[in-house]
């Protein structure tokens, strides 16, 4: 949509929902860079951005025009329906009063109110069982839109989708109630005019009921009109002879009865439907969570913004640098062993160990280095947890100890089970890093396995290696 023309809020909202449905059906949002960019530039709430994006999508001007034509057709349909309903009400009232002799009051009431109330009761029942609304209205509307659609628009007509979106039960209900309300109002007005302009012989006619039965019927029908101030059978004569006061009283009664039983219930139902309808101009908050909208949230309303690198790396890679090592078997002579940053490593149980210490902080590191410098040794084994991260600190501590020992050195890794539990790929990567650390620290004779519980050294198993 490239034009900046102002469109009806309802048409624009329908376009947004139509786009949402189309993208949900496609399984992904449409790739619409310029529309997205415009929505981002505009800013505002997520709903506002969705709205603008929909308006800017390619082809949305055509879709919007189709929706507006559909809405126009719908309005014309409703106008015609209301007109016909009004005429029906007027004709029904005039037909009911068009009697040569006396006119039956219950018959007038039934003509103007009976079917109306019955249909209203059915509508209420449908709301209880949550049945959908009047499909004939939708079918007629769809037929009209298809007929006025241009050749080639076919099933891709946005207006047809708009009808499906609009055909909510409250909206359809509102139209139906409006039609019945106009029927009842037209009947009431016609009735009032005729009663003002002509003289009718109103009467309570019956063939089946006796005098008491007729009185009871009149009393029951007068229950609600009495609340509106209408006189009832207790003050008005039910049978001949009628006075002028009786005639005027029954004329007022029939008008108030039509108002009470025909107009007011439909007016209330219409108000309920209108109250339940969504506001036409804006998307509801819950509608924003529709899958078609929600997937656009990251694109149109990102909740993060990458700033990028603010302090670039200049230091050389340290521990990860690859260096060669020459695996070599352990000598038979007793060895010096140092557990580095592994306080839980058990003291050695094997006679192979000549001495075993723990190194953790600066003081212990200096003390052990001092000891190693004063001792002659056939080999030094640094014992580390395989799951520890082979960082520069460990590399430097290991290098310092190996330098102090001035003897062949190995790095023995314990806790290998825990490392293997991380998966073969992670295990292989970590062992590769340990080899790099061993080489960098000067432990040229490679890696060994270490059983922390037994304090026993072994070659790395094939699984670990």
């Amino acid at each position, binding site marked *: 949509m490239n034009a900046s023309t102002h469109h009806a809020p309802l048409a624009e909202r329908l376009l947004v929902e139509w786009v949402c449905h189309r993208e949900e059906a496609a399984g992904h949002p449409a790739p619409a860079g310029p529309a997205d960019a415009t929505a981002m530039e505009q800013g505002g709430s997520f709903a506002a951005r969705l709205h603008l994006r929909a308006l800017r999508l390619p082809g949305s001007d055509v879709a919007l025009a189709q929706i507006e034509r559909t809405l126009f057709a719908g309005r014309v349909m409703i106008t015609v329906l209301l007109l016909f309903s009004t005429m029906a009400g007027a004709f029904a009232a005039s037909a009911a009063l068009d009697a040569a002799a006396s006119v039956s009051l219950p018959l007038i009431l039934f003509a103007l109110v009976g079917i109306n109330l019955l249909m209203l009761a059915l509508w209420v029942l449908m709301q209880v069982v949550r049945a959908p609304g009047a499909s004939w209205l939708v079918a007629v509307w769809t037929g009209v839109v298809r007929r006025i659609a241009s050749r080639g628009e076919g099933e891709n007509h946005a207006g047809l989708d708009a009808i499906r979106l609009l*055909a909510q039960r409250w909206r359809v209900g509102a139209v139906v109630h409006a039609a019945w309300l106009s029927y009842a109002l037209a009947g009431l007005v016609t009735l009032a005019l005729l009663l003002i302009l002509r003289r009718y012989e109103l009467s309570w006619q019956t063939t089946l009921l006796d005098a008491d039965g007729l009185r009871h019927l009149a009393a029951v029908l007068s229950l609600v009109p009495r609340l509106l101030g209408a006189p009832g059978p207790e003050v008005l004569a039910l049978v001949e002879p009628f006075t002028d006061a009786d005639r005027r009283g029954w004329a007022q009664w029939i008008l108030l009865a039509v108002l009470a039983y025909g107009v007011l219930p439909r007016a209330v139902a219409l108000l309920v439907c209108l109250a339940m309808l969504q506001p036409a101009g804006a998307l509801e908050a819950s509608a924003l969570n529709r899958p078609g909208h929600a997937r656009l949230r990251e694109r149109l309303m990102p909740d993060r*913004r*990458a700033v990028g690198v603010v302090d670039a790396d200049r230091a050389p890679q340290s521990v990860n640098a690859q260096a060669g090592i020459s695996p070599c078997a352990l000598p038979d002579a007793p060895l010096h062993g140092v557990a580095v940053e592994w306080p839980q490593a058990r003291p050695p149980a094997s006679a192979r160990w000549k001495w075993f210490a723990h190194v953790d902080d600066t003081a212990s590191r200096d003390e052990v280095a001092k000891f190693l410098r004063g001792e002659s040794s056939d080999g030094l084994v640094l014992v580390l947890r395989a799951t520890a991260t082979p960082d520069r600190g460990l590399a430097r501590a290991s290098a310092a100890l190996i330098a102090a020992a001035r003897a062949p050195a190995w790095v023995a890794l314990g806790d290998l089970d825990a490392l293997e539990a991380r998966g073969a790929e992670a295990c292989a990567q970590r062992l590769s890093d340990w080899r790099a650390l061993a080489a960098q620290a000067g432990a040229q004779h490679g890696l060994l396995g270490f059983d922390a519980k037994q304090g026993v050294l072994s070659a790395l198993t094939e699984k670990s290696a």
Partner: protein
Amino acid sequence: MNAPPIQLAVVGHTNTGKTSLLRTLTRDVRFGEVCDRPATTRDVSAVELLVGEQSLIRLFDTPGLEDPIGLQGWLALRAQEAADPVARIESFLRSDHDGGRYEQEAKVLRQLRRSDAALVVIDAREPLLAKHREELRLLAECGRPLLPVLNFVADPAAQTGPWREGLARIGLHVLADFDTVVFDHAAEQRLFDKIGLLLEARAAQLTIFSRYRAQQREALIDAACRQIAGLLIDAAALQWRVPNEPSSDLTRLQSVVRHAEQRCVNDLLALFRFELDAFDPPPLPLDQGRWKLDPFDPEALRLLGIRTGSAVAAGAAAGVSIDAMLGGASLGAGALLGAGAGTAFSLYRSHGRRWIDGLRGYRALMIEEETLALLAARQIALLHALLRRGHAATQAVRTGIVSGWPLPELRDAVLRARAHPEWSALNGAQDAASSEEARASLVDLLGRHVRGSGPAAP
């Protein structure tokens, strides 16, 4: 609100999950590089967390500290600033960092000095060692509030007790448990609350952000439930009218459902911003489904009532215009006629058409209830798993073995759709308006179930 963003440096020993924390807090699986190796992050990178268009928090990902003991030793030699730790750090930052030996550490400390506070990420699976204590002392000397964040607390190997004790001994009593792999929304809320404790002047800003995150979470759950409800209704209402002769329709029907489920999974992953290849569901055991019309089935009778009512309304409204065209002489007879016609049409749509189809040698293919139960259970299990998945997780999503309806009300709501083929988008056409209320009630049901049952254990 025009306050500048809160600047938070994410620091810690190497390979403790700093970038992982950033990924999870930003919901961005592509942020930085995550690898179980030292020195994976070597630059200082920044990312802002937005509420609307306002940047409220700026997070800095920093390289890991690797040799705090060595650096403390080097700093100890510079006795002239020993009385003022911050001056000592500033002096170090102005130096050549021992000829580049402590370049990475300098980056971390420099960024911390520029920030309002730091989140110190700790791998709770690691034992508390002297180097960690030295590291925390070094960071504390920068003169900025520190909030230790215990990562991987959901791992059985986590040693949270010793860490809490150890951190308390060096004066760090406020800390947060936050696993970057096994996500916990409440833990994230607590994390921001605790940052607010350290940065009292910025607490209002953090509260706004925290509330926004909670709203986003609710919206995410709602959107996910809508996605699942859509799949369940589409699958339950799926119905094909096919000839009785053997054909490939059954295979095609199964394929359509499989495709729909995969699309639902893809949409869920996209909603949660995970990679599309993060979940590979096992094959769906779809079986042959055939509609068996039972006129005494309570569900069928209930359906009949609904259809009758709905059609009466349509016909009755049609009667108004018939009345008018007859000039009012019928006095509502047209309305009654219309109501009767509507009822007949409704009966035909609900049952008559199927009877006629049966006589003409056609049958209706549908999805069996067991398969629908499986679809429901699997999507809900996936949703639970995604709600508990941090954006730092690199393993594929696992939901375990699921079967049966997660709750009886869900079964009733889904099975109701079997009688409404017009509700299913998989049938080629969709009557959005008529299915909207069924979808909404299913979304409501799913939402209450997901929120009520709480996150599943990983």
